[in-house]
């Protein structure tokens, strides 16, 4: 594992493992609740990709902004949105972080500057550009991190956003979560140039590719990238090579990839890998892991409890939140 500029002491190892496990266990619970019909609509699991969001969130500050996709439970959780509010949102309860209006694909949270939750592929990129523009114009040294899949790189909005960000030297960190598939479309049938990070060069954007299954690598790269962006040097493009272990959504028959490929990637999963390494390196022991699992389990249980205990928004307020006043 790359260790440059990163103090991998016991405490930090514990944090990294725990953060990944929080997402993993939370989402496993979501999948279970989906089959029980507690959660409905589309549910896109991040399982397998945890190292990406977990690595990057490490290096953000409170005032930074985050824009994500419809596969954003992990990002929300790791950004600090309370697990209970996320779960309640997926239940459709008014205690949810979007008052039950958004559901799984539209988690929002003002206190942590978490701007969603965007279910239009590529749609978050222009927003991130604008958030960064606002920071730049108001001379705030915040960073806006924008997560998206490699599938989004084909959309026109990707192109327009990267150009704007580079042209105006905006403080955006673009994080491409390259999990090789956009639904069932493999990268090589959607991009004439499959080296995603190389695209950044055509906009004069600094970029690099990192092993997204290795949280330490991700964190190191993220620190470099965020420092660069925060220093006012312009945008940065980070491609994280990763893989989703589960189906695209709960409706996907996974006809487009074979089980062996999935098995191999799962084998090299980010949690297993980091945990093994940290234990072998003597930074963590079984007791630590058990402790973390217990903490995480109780967080998840509490989240479910919170969601279960939540209430339904009265139907009378259906027209709320369309506009500031009910004048629309």
């Amino acid at each position, binding site marked *: 594992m790359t260790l440059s500029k990163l103090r991998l002491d016991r405490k930090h190892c514990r944090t990294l493992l725990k953060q990944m496990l929080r997402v993993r266990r939370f989402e496993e619970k979501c999948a279970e609740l989906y089959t029980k019909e507690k959660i*409905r*609509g*589309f549910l896109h699991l991040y399982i397998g990709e945890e190292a990406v969001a977990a690595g990057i969130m490490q290096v953000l500050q409170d005032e930074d902004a985050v824009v994500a996709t419809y596969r954003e439970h992990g990002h929300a959780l790791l950004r600090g949105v309370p697990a209970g509010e996320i779960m309640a*949102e997926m239940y*459709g*309860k008014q205690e949810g972080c*979007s008052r*039950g*209006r*958004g*559901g*799984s*694909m*539209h988690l929002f949270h003002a206190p942590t500057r978490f701007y969603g939750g*965007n*279910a*239009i*592929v*590529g*749609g978050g990129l222009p927003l991130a550009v604008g958030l960064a523009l606002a920071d730049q114009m108001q001379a705030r040294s915040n960073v806006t991190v924008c997560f998206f899949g490699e*599938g*989004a790189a*084909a*959309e*026109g909005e990707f192109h327009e956003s990267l150009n704007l960000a580079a042209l105006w030297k905006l403080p955006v960190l673009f994080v491409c979560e390259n999990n090789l598939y*956009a*639904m*069932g*479309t*493999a990268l090589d*049938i*959607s*991009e004439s140039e499959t080296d995603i990070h190389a695209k950044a060069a055509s906009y004069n954007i600094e970029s690099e590719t990192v092993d997204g299954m290795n949280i330490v690598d991700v964190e190191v790269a993220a620190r470099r990238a965020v420092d660069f962006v925060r220093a006012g040097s312009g945008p940065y493009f980070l491609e994280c090579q990763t893989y989703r272990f589960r189906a695209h959504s709960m409706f*996907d*028959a996974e*006809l*487009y990839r074979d089980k062996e490929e999935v098995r191999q990637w799962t084998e090299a999963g980010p949690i297993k890998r980091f945990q093994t390494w940290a234990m072998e390196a003597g930074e963590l022991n079984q007791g630590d892991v058990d402790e973390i699992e217990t903490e995480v389990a109780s967080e998840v249980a509490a989240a479910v409890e919170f969601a279960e205990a939540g209430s*339904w*928004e009265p*139907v009378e307020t*259906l*027209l709320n939140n*369309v506009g500031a006043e009910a004048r*629309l």
Partner: protein
Amino acid sequence: MSNRMTYREAMREAIWAAMSADDRVFLMGEDVGHYGGCYAVSKGMLDEFGPERVRDTPLSESGFSGAGIGAALGGMRPIVEIMTCNFALLALDQIMNSAATLRHMSGGQFHVSLVIRMATGAGRQLAAQHSHSLEGWFAHIPGLRILAPATVADARAMLPRALEDPDPVLIFENALLYNREGDVPEDLGAIDIDHAKVERSGNDISLITYGGSLWKCLEAAEKLSAAGVSAEVIDLRVLRPLDDSTIMTSVAKTRRALIVDEGWRSGSLSAEIMARIMEQTFWTLDAPPTRLCSAEVPIPYAKHLEEAALPQVDGIVEAARKLAGT
């Protein structure tokens, strides 16, 4: 003679048959191939017809819709699939500024024989960005033909006819219908696809609707019948151009009309129908037509709120009874 199948199977059979019959026909869109279609409509087609004719596209709605236009100009008969009408907004420039206008701008020299299919509608808790019902809104655009198959038979019959159309046709498939079963007559040619259809005959009130709401209206008509109100149910089927004559004939008979439309109320298709009724058959009315539309709110995720936002059977019954004065 007829065959029983689902709406999904009907669409699949329609595409399959068209591809088998005519080399110029091909299917293009996101995940139509390896994934099997986001609603499994094109499952198995990649194996049958190969990746040239069942063409997975990158995520680039504007690009591949425009490519469909160009391919049509070049003599092909493309079926472009946009996963849902929500994403079709990304392709609206190509649809309005190119597909719908090329024949006109070129003084009739060129025409765009393109079919664009997309899913529409709410009801599956997919929230604001996946639940638009924009078919009525697209019906504003001159140069387009807008189809909204509600029945399995129409799902089967409309596509081949759309492919014969020399001009662009948009087919809106309400995603809630894919699993619905129905009968498809052997003789597809006998299915008229230019007119609205009286799906149920009645005397007291006309329920005018299309797509997913047809089934709600038919259910409501049953309930109304039990309450002594004889409702006629009209499936518009073609949203552009509207078939005024079927509408007016019905309204002239029942003298009362309720339009049920899953689009947002203001500026919806329901408004256009009300305006036309006013223009064409005002003097036969016993009461002003009314309408039941979606609430003017981005569709909420929570089930009870989503249900409240959409026209439902009980609401239709209630509105109809009020209008009929019972």
